[in-house]
Protein backbone atom coordinates (compact mmCIF):
# COMPACT_ATOMS: atom_id res chain seq x y z
CA UNK A 1 0.00 0.00 0.00
CA UNK A 2 1.35 3.38 -0.95
CA UNK A 3 -0.02 6.54 0.52
CA UNK A 4 -1.69 8.96 -1.83
CA UNK A 5 -0.87 12.60 -1.23
CA UNK A 6 -3.91 14.59 -0.19
CA UNK A 7 -3.85 18.31 -0.89
CA UNK A 8 -3.40 20.14 2.44
CA UNK A 9 -6.41 22.34 1.74
CA UNK A 10 -8.54 19.21 1.44
CA UNK A 11 -7.77 18.36 5.06
CA UNK A 12 -8.04 21.96 6.20
CA UNK A 13 -11.47 22.17 4.58
CA UNK A 14 -13.13 20.63 7.60
CA UNK A 15 -12.21 23.69 9.63
CA UNK A 16 -14.54 26.62 9.19
CA UNK A 17 -17.50 26.93 6.89
CA UNK A 18 -16.98 26.84 3.16
CA UNK A 19 -18.75 29.61 1.25
CA UNK A 20 -21.23 28.20 -1.24
CA UNK A 21 -20.08 28.85 -4.77
CA UNK A 22 -22.36 29.28 -7.76
CA UNK A 23 -22.07 28.07 -11.32
CA UNK A 24 -24.21 29.10 -14.27
CA UNK A 25 -24.15 27.09 -17.49
CA UNK A 26 -25.83 28.37 -20.63
CA UNK A 27 -26.57 25.19 -22.59
CA UNK A 28 -26.97 26.57 -26.09
CA UNK A 29 -25.79 23.63 -28.17
CA UNK A 30 -27.83 20.52 -28.82
CA UNK A 31 -24.82 18.57 -30.10
CA UNK A 32 -24.27 15.25 -28.35
CA UNK A 33 -20.76 15.97 -27.11
CA UNK A 34 -21.52 19.50 -25.92
CA UNK A 35 -24.69 18.42 -24.11
CA UNK A 36 -22.65 15.61 -22.59
CA UNK A 37 -19.98 18.06 -21.37
CA UNK A 38 -22.62 20.40 -19.88
CA UNK A 39 -24.16 17.53 -17.93
CA UNK A 40 -20.81 16.21 -16.66
CA UNK A 41 -19.91 19.69 -15.42
CA UNK A 42 -23.34 20.38 -13.93
CA UNK A 43 -23.61 17.06 -12.08
CA UNK A 44 -20.05 17.27 -10.74
CA UNK A 45 -20.56 20.87 -9.65
CA UNK A 46 -23.70 19.90 -7.75
CA UNK A 47 -21.77 17.02 -6.14
CA UNK A 48 -19.18 19.58 -5.03
CA UNK A 49 -21.87 21.64 -3.26
CA UNK A 50 -21.72 24.29 -5.96
CA UNK A 51 -25.15 25.82 -6.53
CA UNK A 52 -25.68 25.04 -10.20
CA UNK A 53 -28.13 26.50 -12.67
CA UNK A 54 -28.39 25.51 -16.31
CA UNK A 55 -30.20 27.83 -18.71
CA UNK A 56 -31.26 25.81 -21.76
CA UNK A 57 -31.78 27.75 -24.94
CA UNK A 58 -31.86 27.32 -28.75
CA UNK A 59 -30.69 23.82 -29.74
CA UNK A 60 -29.92 23.07 -26.11
CA UNK A 61 -33.63 23.19 -25.34
CA UNK A 62 -34.26 20.16 -27.59
CA UNK A 63 -32.13 18.00 -25.28
CA UNK A 64 -34.68 18.53 -22.50
CA UNK A 65 -37.73 17.48 -24.49
CA UNK A 66 -39.07 14.05 -23.46
CA UNK A 67 -37.33 11.22 -25.31
CA UNK A 68 -40.59 9.71 -26.53
CA UNK A 69 -41.77 13.00 -28.04
CA UNK A 70 -41.14 12.68 -31.76
CA UNK A 71 -42.48 15.88 -33.31
CA UNK A 72 -42.84 19.23 -31.54
CA UNK A 73 -44.40 22.48 -32.75
CA UNK A 74 -47.59 23.92 -34.08
CA UNK A 75 -46.81 24.87 -37.67
CA UNK A 76 -44.99 23.02 -40.43
CA UNK A 77 -41.71 24.87 -39.95
CA UNK A 78 -41.51 24.00 -36.24
CA UNK A 79 -42.54 20.43 -37.01
CA UNK A 80 -39.92 20.22 -39.75
CA UNK A 81 -37.21 21.43 -37.33
CA UNK A 82 -38.04 18.68 -34.83
CA UNK A 83 -38.28 16.14 -37.66
CA UNK A 84 -34.79 17.02 -38.92
CA UNK A 85 -33.30 17.09 -35.43
CA UNK A 86 -35.16 14.62 -33.26
CA UNK A 87 -35.59 16.10 -29.76
CA UNK A 88 -34.72 14.28 -26.53
CA UNK A 89 -31.58 13.57 -24.54
CA UNK A 90 -31.11 10.14 -26.15
CA UNK A 91 -31.30 11.46 -29.72
CA UNK A 92 -28.45 13.95 -29.88
CA UNK A 93 -26.26 14.08 -32.96
CA UNK A 94 -22.50 14.61 -32.90
CA UNK A 95 -21.30 17.96 -34.29
CA UNK A 96 -18.79 16.11 -36.48
CA UNK A 97 -18.94 12.67 -38.08
CA UNK A 98 -22.59 12.04 -37.28
CA UNK A 99 -22.89 9.75 -40.35
CA UNK A 100 -26.63 9.14 -40.00
CA UNK A 101 -26.26 8.15 -36.36
CA UNK A 102 -23.12 6.02 -36.68
CA UNK A 103 -21.13 8.67 -34.78
CA UNK A 104 -23.36 8.73 -31.69
CA UNK A 105 -23.69 4.93 -31.81
CA UNK A 106 -19.92 4.55 -31.69
CA UNK A 107 -19.64 7.15 -28.93
CA UNK A 108 -22.13 5.15 -26.85
CA UNK A 109 -20.28 1.88 -27.56
CA UNK A 110 -17.09 3.54 -26.33
CA UNK A 111 -18.90 4.95 -23.29
CA UNK A 112 -20.05 1.42 -22.39
CA UNK A 113 -16.57 0.00 -22.93
CA UNK A 114 -14.91 2.62 -20.75
CA UNK A 115 -17.80 2.79 -18.26
CA UNK A 116 -18.46 6.46 -18.88
CA UNK A 117 -21.95 7.63 -18.00
CA UNK A 118 -24.19 8.61 -20.88
CA UNK A 119 -26.05 11.94 -21.06
CA UNK A 120 -29.33 10.41 -19.91
CA UNK A 121 -27.80 9.02 -16.69
CA UNK A 122 -25.97 12.28 -16.05
CA UNK A 123 -29.19 14.23 -16.52
CA UNK A 124 -30.90 12.00 -13.94
CA UNK A 125 -27.92 12.58 -11.64
CA UNK A 126 -28.18 16.36 -12.14
CA UNK A 127 -31.83 16.25 -11.14
CA UNK A 128 -31.11 14.04 -8.14
CA UNK A 129 -28.38 16.39 -6.93
CA UNK A 130 -30.54 19.50 -7.27
CA UNK A 131 -29.21 21.17 -10.42
CA UNK A 132 -31.72 23.84 -11.43
CA UNK A 133 -32.58 23.67 -15.13
CA UNK A 134 -34.33 26.70 -16.60
CA UNK A 135 -35.89 26.45 -20.06
CA UNK A 136 -35.78 29.58 -22.24
CA UNK A 137 -39.16 31.16 -22.96
CA UNK A 138 -38.28 32.72 -26.30
CA UNK A 139 -36.79 29.50 -27.74
CA UNK A 140 -39.78 27.52 -26.46
CA UNK A 141 -42.05 29.88 -28.45
CA UNK A 142 -39.78 29.87 -31.49
CA UNK A 143 -39.62 26.07 -31.68
CA UNK A 144 -43.23 25.65 -30.53
CA UNK A 145 -42.05 23.50 -27.61
CA UNK A 146 -44.76 23.34 -24.97
CA UNK A 147 -44.13 22.89 -21.27
CA UNK A 148 -45.64 19.38 -21.40
CA UNK A 149 -43.17 18.44 -24.17
CA UNK A 150 -40.32 19.04 -21.71
CA UNK A 151 -39.10 16.51 -19.13
CA UNK A 152 -40.42 16.78 -15.57
CA UNK A 153 -38.56 18.49 -12.77
CA UNK A 154 -37.42 21.61 -14.61
CA UNK A 155 -37.62 25.09 -13.11
CA UNK A 156 -40.01 27.68 -14.47
CA UNK A 157 -39.54 28.96 -18.03
CA UNK A 158 -37.55 32.20 -17.95
CA UNK A 159 -35.97 34.82 -20.19
CA UNK A 160 -32.62 36.47 -20.79
CA UNK A 161 -32.92 38.79 -17.77
CA UNK A 162 -33.18 35.86 -15.33
CA UNK A 163 -30.28 34.12 -17.08
CA UNK A 164 -28.19 37.30 -16.76
CA UNK A 165 -29.04 37.58 -13.09
CA UNK A 166 -27.95 33.95 -12.58
CA UNK A 167 -24.79 34.55 -14.60
CA UNK A 168 -23.74 37.79 -12.90
CA UNK A 169 -24.33 36.35 -9.44
CA UNK A 170 -22.40 33.17 -10.23
CA UNK A 171 -18.71 32.63 -9.52
CA UNK A 172 -18.32 31.09 -12.94
CA UNK A 173 -20.42 31.11 -16.10
CA UNK A 174 -20.03 28.81 -19.08
CA UNK A 175 -21.57 29.07 -22.52
CA UNK A 176 -21.68 25.60 -24.03
Amino acid at each position, binding site marked *: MTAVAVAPQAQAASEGA*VKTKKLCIIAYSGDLEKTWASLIIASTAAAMNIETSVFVTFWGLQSFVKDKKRITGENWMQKMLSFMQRPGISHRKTSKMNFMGMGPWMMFQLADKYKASKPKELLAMCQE*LGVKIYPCQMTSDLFGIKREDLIDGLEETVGAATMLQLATEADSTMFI
Partner: protein
Amino acid sequence: MANEIKVRGDASGLSCPMPILRATQAMKTVATGELVEVIATDPGSVKDFAAWATSTGNPIVESDSANGKYRFVLRHK
Protein backbone atom coordinates in the same frame (compact mmCIF):
# COMPACT_ATOMS: atom_id res chain seq x y z
CA MET B 1 -16.92 10.54 16.81
CA ALA B 2 -17.37 7.06 15.41
CA ASN B 3 -14.44 5.78 13.42
CA GLU B 4 -16.07 2.82 11.80
CA ILE B 5 -17.01 3.05 8.16
CA LYS B 6 -20.77 3.40 7.79
CA VAL B 7 -21.19 3.08 4.02
CA ARG B 8 -18.89 1.54 1.42
CA GLY B 9 -19.14 2.50 -2.23
CA ASP B 10 -17.42 0.77 -5.10
CA ALA B 11 -16.77 2.94 -8.15
CA SER B 12 -14.18 0.55 -9.63
CA GLY B 13 -13.99 0.73 -13.39
CA LEU B 14 -16.18 3.82 -13.56
CA SER B 15 -14.93 6.87 -15.41
CA CYS B 16 -15.04 10.49 -14.35
CA PRO B 17 -17.25 11.94 -12.92
CA MET B 18 -18.95 8.80 -11.53
CA PRO B 19 -16.61 8.17 -8.55
CA ILE B 20 -17.35 11.69 -7.29
CA LEU B 21 -21.09 11.33 -7.96
CA ARG B 22 -21.21 7.92 -6.23
CA ALA B 23 -19.34 9.39 -3.25
CA THR B 24 -21.83 12.25 -3.05
CA GLN B 25 -24.77 9.84 -3.17
CA ALA B 26 -23.20 7.73 -0.41
CA MET B 27 -22.50 10.88 1.62
CA LYS B 28 -26.19 11.77 1.57
CA THR B 29 -27.03 8.51 3.35
CA VAL B 30 -24.87 9.15 6.43
CA ALA B 31 -25.12 11.58 9.34
CA THR B 32 -22.63 14.25 10.42
CA GLY B 33 -19.33 12.77 11.57
CA GLU B 34 -19.92 9.38 9.96
CA LEU B 35 -17.49 7.82 7.49
CA VAL B 36 -17.89 6.72 3.90
CA GLU B 37 -15.36 4.61 2.01
CA VAL B 38 -15.12 4.83 -1.76
CA ILE B 39 -12.98 2.63 -4.01
CA ALA B 40 -12.12 3.93 -7.47
CA THR B 41 -9.79 2.90 -10.28
CA ASP B 42 -9.90 6.20 -12.16
CA PRO B 43 -6.39 7.69 -11.69
CA GLY B 44 -7.84 11.20 -11.96
CA SER B 45 -9.86 10.54 -8.81
CA VAL B 46 -6.85 11.27 -6.56
CA LYS B 47 -6.86 14.95 -7.47
CA ASP B 48 -10.62 15.01 -7.99
CA PHE B 49 -11.41 13.79 -4.48
CA ALA B 50 -9.06 16.41 -3.03
CA ALA B 51 -10.89 19.13 -5.00
CA TRP B 52 -14.24 17.69 -3.96
CA ALA B 53 -13.18 17.70 -0.29
CA THR B 54 -12.04 21.31 -0.53
CA SER B 55 -15.25 22.40 -2.20
CA THR B 56 -17.69 20.50 0.01
CA GLY B 57 -15.79 20.77 3.28
CA ASN B 58 -16.09 17.01 3.84
CA PRO B 59 -12.55 15.95 4.77
CA ILE B 60 -10.66 12.95 3.40
CA VAL B 61 -9.56 11.21 6.58
CA GLU B 62 -7.67 8.38 4.93
CA SER B 63 -6.53 7.52 1.44
CA ASP B 64 -4.25 4.95 -0.12
CA SER B 65 -3.75 3.03 -3.31
CA ALA B 66 -2.80 -0.54 -4.18
CA ASN B 67 -2.95 -2.53 -7.42
CA GLY B 68 -4.50 0.29 -9.37
CA LYS B 69 -7.27 0.82 -6.84
CA TYR B 70 -7.65 4.05 -4.94
CA ARG B 71 -9.36 4.10 -1.58
CA PHE B 72 -10.78 7.19 0.07
CA VAL B 73 -12.35 7.46 3.50
CA LEU B 74 -14.51 10.55 3.73
CA ARG B 75 -16.11 12.13 6.77
CA HIS B 76 -19.47 13.82 6.55
CA LYS B 77 -18.85 17.28 8.00
